[in-house]
């Protein structure tokens, strides 16, 4: 297989964009799975209750807050 085309910097940039998109999708998938377990405790209904939907959106944001906090704590230990 001729892989010389992979040395093309423009192609590399397109590949990197796809990689970032894939990583973002992976993050969303992982968070949705974890937050579903935390927030949807009963049988799924025909729509979310307001507490279920606010739990889901809070869940994602608290995860991001936690990520920042973890990095800061790590850095304070260096």
């Amino acid at each position, binding site marked *: *297989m*001729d892989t010389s*085309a992979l040395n093309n910097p423009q192609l590399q940039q*397109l590949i990197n964009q*796809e990689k970032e998109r894939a990583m973002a999708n992976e993050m969303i998938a992982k968070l*949705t799975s974890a937050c*579903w377990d935390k927030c949807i405790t009963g049988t*799924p209904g025909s729509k*979310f209750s307001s507490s279920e939907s606010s739990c889901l959106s809070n869940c*994602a944001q608290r995860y991001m807050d936690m990520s920042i906090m973890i990095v800061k704590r790590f850095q304070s230990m260096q």
Partner: protein
Amino acid sequence: MDSFSSPSSSSPSSQMSAEDFMDQLKVQLAQAYAEEFLETVRGKCFEKCITKPGSSLSGGESSCISRCVDRYIEATGIISRSLFNAQR
């Protein structure tokens, strides 16, 4: 180069154009994502809806599964929007 070659490929067989490569990459990424998503939904909805497996799917189990799939897709949207709003 014969008249049946596509304009985007230069030499036959061994070399693929960047455009063809990116098209194939996107298709494969989309397929992998869809399979992973389906596997996750199977797991969640089996847990929520099939509590005591019988000799066939009951009407209650079937409607639970339908609702579960809809809700999980909705949850994905809520999480996705929540993440992008937080990044402002």
